[in-house]
Structures are given as C-alpha cells and as structure tokens.
C-alpha cells in the first residue's frame, strides 16, 4: 500500500517536472492533449489523443456530472404521477432514481480517475518525446507503434479486452454493491418509485444486533458457525475420501482400474443441479429413502434410541436442523469424492516410488507408509489449494440451495431475518435479494464473506504467487 502511494507521488513529481521544463508544445498539451504530438509531426497520434480527450470530457460533463452532483443525497425528488384533466393522461414528474445516481456516480468517478491518469501519463510521454528529439534519437512513427503491439507491448494487446470485461462485470458491480451496504436499499425503498439514501454503518451494526425487532445478530452467529463448520468438514471429508479411494483403486491387486474410476466419474457427468435436486427428492420426508428406512425398521430404531420423537412419521433427513446438517455433509461426500479422486490419482502417480520401496524394506506397514510418506507428499502439493477449496466451500451455493430449497425453519428468530438453520452466508444473501429484496443486508453479508475469505487467503497468498515457487519448473 505504501509502495503504491509512493508510486503515485513519484508520478505527480514527474508530471511537475515535465510541465516545468517542457517547451511550448508540452505546455500546450496541458489544454489540448494531442498538441505535443502535433509539434513533433506525429499527426495520427495527436488526432487520436485529442479526440479521446474530447470524448472523455464530453461524457463527464454531458452524462455523468448531473448524477455525480446528487451522489451525496442519492436524489431528493420522489416519483409522483399526476392525472392531467385537460389531456386525460397521467404525467410523471421529473424524479430522481437513486439507483441510476449511484451507478452513474460511481462510473463517473472511475472515468475521472482514469482521465487524470491518462492526462499525467500523456504529459510525461510528450515530454519524453521532446527529450528524444533534442538528443536526436529515433522517434517511433505511428506504424512502429502499431507494430509494437505485436511485440514489446503484446501484453497490452492481450490484456485490454479481458481487463475491460473484468472492470465492467466485476469491479464496477463490486464497488456498487459495497456502496449499497451503506444505504437503506430494501423492499420499502425501491427505485424508481421510491428513493433510498445513505445510512452510514447502520446496517453493519444491525448485523451484530439482537433485539426485539432486529434478529440479525442471532441469525448471523448461527449461520456463520454452520458456514465455517461446513466448509472445513466438506473439504476434509472429500479430500481424505478422495485420496483413500484413489489409493484403493491404484493398489497393485486391484483389477479393471479404469472401469472402477469410470464408474465413479460418471456421477460428475450429470450436472449438479440435476443430481442434487434428485437427491433432495430421494431424501424428502415422503421420499423413497424414507420408505426404505421404514421398511427395514430404521425409523423405529431411531425412535427407540430417542433420536426421533415417538410420533414421527418419517426421518427428517432434509427438514430438521441437525438431521439436515448431517445429510448435507454426507451428500457432499457423494458429490465431491469422485472429483477429488481424479485429482489425487494424478498426484499419486507422480509419487516417488523409491521412497515407498525403501520404507517397505525398513519394515513400515501400510498405515505408516500412508501417513508418513503419501500424505505429507500429497499435502505438500495440494496444501495451498486446500485452503482455496475451503473458500470454495464457503461459497458453495449449489449443494446447500438445491438440497434445501424446500426447507422451512420453525425458529422464529431465524425466520425474522429470512435465514434458515442450513443456510450458508452465500445462500442467505442470495435469498435476501432474490426473494426478499433486502439488498442492503445482502451487501453487508457479502462484504463480511469477502473479509473471511480474504483473511483465509492471506494464509496461502505468499505461497501461491508472492513467493518464489513460481517458475520452479522453468
């Protein structure tokens, strides 16, 4: 962070230097950005730069400025319809739309920041050309410039389109939603009919508050606890299970290895939303699994040992807390192991066999070999990605939502916050928006989820790209 500030500082310093020592063309570039290029007879560049400047300024003043001016209030004029007796038509007043103000306001700010950066780098570039001219160096013609995008500046060619995509689909929406977390945008404040406005950190306070009217604090602690337990258990079970299964199939005395692998991998072939919905029906209160359990006496057994009340009609696999939690974890093992097995198979094939051989000669038994040689090796390779998959499971929408979309909570405090016992943060936030239009709280929960994931990633960050592991194979 400090590094970044220093860089920005240096950039401004260079800018000042360029302005102070630049000749008339450089100084003229302060107003007309293409001037510096015209002065060195680089007309194409000059025209492009001037057009760009004009376009950006026009869009800032023509499109974004009116919205940015209202950013502090997010609009004050509410929509009203008036019935005009003379024309017999409804007329609508010139109302403010908070959503548009926020969105265009954010884009406007980004455009201005980008323009400032462009402006500074332009002056510096123009000054550099002046220097080169003075020292008689070769100045790239426009055609040279174009050619450089295939070579020295190929990364710009490659990265431009993907970056624009990321800015539009990712960065702007994220900034937008972060802002929503500080407003009162919910079902009672929906543009264009109603306005919403800034409320500061009130929503964050509400998330941790438990009172008569606000139950988010109560629900949040429970949802968060289940999210973390789920993420760790789901990762650990499928990871271990996958390695064991791969190990089992890879064993020298297992025949038809390919066939066994294929049988498990078939389950990946059918999309999760199909298999999970199907399983949710199988384990439903009146589903086929319950019929089996009643037939073989499992239902009565659970009643007898007191896990179920005497009046229970069925085993509530997916309809009661506790039961649902266990079922979800079990189903996830079913979903996750084939994939982990594929990954583990690849790793196990690369394991140095001489180590295992020498361990055998030394008289180690199978469990010792597994825990002392295989596991450390696998952990070394997949360790960082393990934390990534914990993060993936924190955001594992499919398994939870598709298995429990019919679940109804009986806990009033949970229901007041539109949460269920089986919700992860991510499914909670999804339903808050999709079913209850409570965008402000959804944003707050999203930000909290991000903070948790970011904190976890810090653990792996240095090993992923910060360290010197990169390029080991080159």
């Amino acid at each position, binding site marked *: 962070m400090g590094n970044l500030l220093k860089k920005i500082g240096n950039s401004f310093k260079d800018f000042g230097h360029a302005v102070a020592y630049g000749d008339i063309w450089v100084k003229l570039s302060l107003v007309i950005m293409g001037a510096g290029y015209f002065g060195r007879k680089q007309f194409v560049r000059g025209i492009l730069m001037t057009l760009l400047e004009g376009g950006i300024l026009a869009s800032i003043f023509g499109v974004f400025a009116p919205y940015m001016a209202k950013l502090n209030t997010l609009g004050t004029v509410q929509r009203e319809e008036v019935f005009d007796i003379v024309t017999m038509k409804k007329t609508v007043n010139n109302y403010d739309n908070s959503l548009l103000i926020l969105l265009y306001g954010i884009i406007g700010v980004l455009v201005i920041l980008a323009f400032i950066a462009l402006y500074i780098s332009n002056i510096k570039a123009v000054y550099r050309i002046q220097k080169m001219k003075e020292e008689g160096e070769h100045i790239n013609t426009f055609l040279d410039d174009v050619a450089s995008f295939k070579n020295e500046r*190929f990364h710009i060619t490659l990265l431009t*389109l993907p970056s624009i995509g990321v800015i539009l689909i990712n960065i702007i929406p994220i900034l937008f939603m972060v802002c929503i977390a500080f407003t009162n945008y919910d079902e009672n404040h929906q543009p264009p009919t109603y306005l919403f406005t800034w409320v500061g950190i009130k929503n964050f306070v509400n998330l941790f508050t438990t009172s008569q009217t606000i139950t988010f604090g109560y629900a949040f602690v429970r949802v968060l606890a289940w999210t973390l337990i789920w993420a760790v258990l789901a990762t650990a079970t499928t990871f271990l299970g996958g390695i064991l299964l791969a190990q089992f199939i890879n064993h020298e005395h297992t025949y038809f290895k390919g066939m066994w692998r294929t049988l498990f991998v078939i389950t990946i072939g059918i999309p999760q939303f199909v298999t999970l919905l199907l399983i949710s029906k199988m384990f439903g209160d009146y589903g086929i699994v319950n019929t089996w359990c009643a037939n073989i006496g499992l239902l009565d057994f659970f009643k007898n040992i007191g896990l179920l009340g005497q009046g229970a009609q069925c085993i509530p696999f997916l309809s009661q807390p506790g039961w649902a939690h266990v079922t979800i974890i079990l189903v996830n093992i*079913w979903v996750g192991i084939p994939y982990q097995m594929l990954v583990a198979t690849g790793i196990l094939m690369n394991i140095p066999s001489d180590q295992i051989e020498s361990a055998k000669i030394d008289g180690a038994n199978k469990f010792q070999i597994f825990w002392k040689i295989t596991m450390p090796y696998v952990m070394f390779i997949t360790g960082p990605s393990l934390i990534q998959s914990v993060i993936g499971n924190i955001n594992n929408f499919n398994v939870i939502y598709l298995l429990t979309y019919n679940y109804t909570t009986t806990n009033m405090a949970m229901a007041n916050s539109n949460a269920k016992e089986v919700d992860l943060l991510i499914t909670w936030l999804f339903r808050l928006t999709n079913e209850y239009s409570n965008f402000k709280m959804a944003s707050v929960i999203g930000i909290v989820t991000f903070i948790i994931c970011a904190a976890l990633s810090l653990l792996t960050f240095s090993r992923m790209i910060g360290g010197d592991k990169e390029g080991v194979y080159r």
Partner: protein
Amino acid sequence: MKKTWKIVVRHLVLAFLAFVWLIPIFWLIVTTFSVQKGINTNHFFPEQWTLANYHQLFFEPDAAANFPAWFKNSMIIGTFSCLVSSIFVIMTAYAFSFIDFKGRKQLMSFSLILGMFPGVLSMIAMYFILKMIGLTDSVVGLIILYSGASGLGYLILKGFFDTVPTSLHEAAKLEGASEATIFAKIVVPLSKPMIVYTVINSFLNPWMDFVMVRLMIKSKDASDWTMALGLFNLLQRALVNQYFAYFCCGGLMIAVPISILFIVMQKFYVEGVTGGAVKG
C-alpha cells in the same frame, strides 16, 4: 489362499461403493421410463415401463415444460460464452506467464483479491445494470455475464504455461519471431491438452450453472428459460406430481453433450485436471 480372499474382499468393497455412488444415477435412468408421472415413493423401479416421457420431452412442449427451447437457449449461451471466455483466459494466461511487463505481480495480486468477492454479490449489481439496459431475460445478457470477467480464471492455465521451457521462447525470439508469432505458432500448439481443458470448462460452466440464471431470468415464459432454471421449476410443489419423470428425462439429456465431450477429450481432460492440481 489368504491373498486371493483379500483380493475378493477388495473388489467387493469397490463394487459396493460404486453401487452406492450409482444409485441416484440409476434411479434417474429408470424413472425416465416410468408411466407414473410423479415421484414413486414406494418402488425403485417403475411398475410399468414406457417411452412416452421422451416423446413428451422432445415433441410436446407446453406452458410449464419446454425442453427443446431450454436446450437451444443453453446451447447458444454455452457455445458463445465458451468461445469468448476461452479466448480471454488464454490471452490473460499468456500475458501473465510469458511477458515480464511492468506491474505484472501487482495485477496478479489484484486479480486474486477480486476473485475473493462472492460472485453472487457482483451478480446482484449486474442484475440492476442489465435491467437498466434491458438485457435481463435475454441470452445476450447471460453470455456477457458468463464470459465478461472470465479473464480472472487464468491461474491454472498460467501454471501450465509456466512449464513451457523458457529456452524455447528465447530461441524463437533470437530467430526474430515476435511475441504474437510465438504465441500463435509455439505456445498454443504446445499446450493443446490444457487448452482443451480450458475450453471444456468454459463450456460446462454456463451449461451447468444454476445461480446466475436464477438471479437473471425473471420471465414467466418457459421458452425464455435455460435448462437449469426450467428443470428446477418442474420440481415446485405444484408441478412435481405432473413432471417428475419429465425432469429425469431432461436431466439425463443434459448429460449427453457432457458425456460426449468427456469421452472425446478424456485424455486431455484428465491431464488437465491432474496437471492443474500438481501445480496447486
């Protein structure tokens, strides 16, 4: 003697596990032939068999179930998103792996942080934005969503590119090849397995996705839906007794293109999965 016994047990265990894993798939398949349209809660196998469900699936679309339209929508979305996102991923991965430009590390760190925001969060905002320009409920809107930010998914492919020997790159440069030539003539042909893997993934992601469609498509007209949304809708309480067998048929049909992809590209795919994993 003891050894043979052990081997038999080993295979019995495997057979049992495979059996457990295949129960739901098997149930899906047999239910597609069931005369009973709703869920049969008493019998695993249908009491009477028929092909009528498939006929209904392909030739009798109605207001609630329109598989041909869903298949078409999903296919269009999958194909175009796949095209755009594969290109984006390959370009980004190449730039980050082979070109040592200013700010490379910073950009990579930044992209890692961006990837940590829950996708649903930015999707909600995208819903408002697309609504303003009238692209919700449209195939184009979904294609933009699936492919726009795909550049962020470059890490696995970059890991693979990193294993291409630097000497190759340098030799080509000495011969006077430009970066663009090296990219097109050397690196892309060399990385075929990984690129196939990338392409398959970029197709499967939109093909199998449920979340975004659920958020983006609010249309009540069944012909606007994709497969995930349409099939999900069939399991609503009011419809499930009419359409469960239909749902199973549809679910099985979705797997067909995926299976074909898997079988054709199997070698590449396994190399891809494991190659990416080893890179971690």
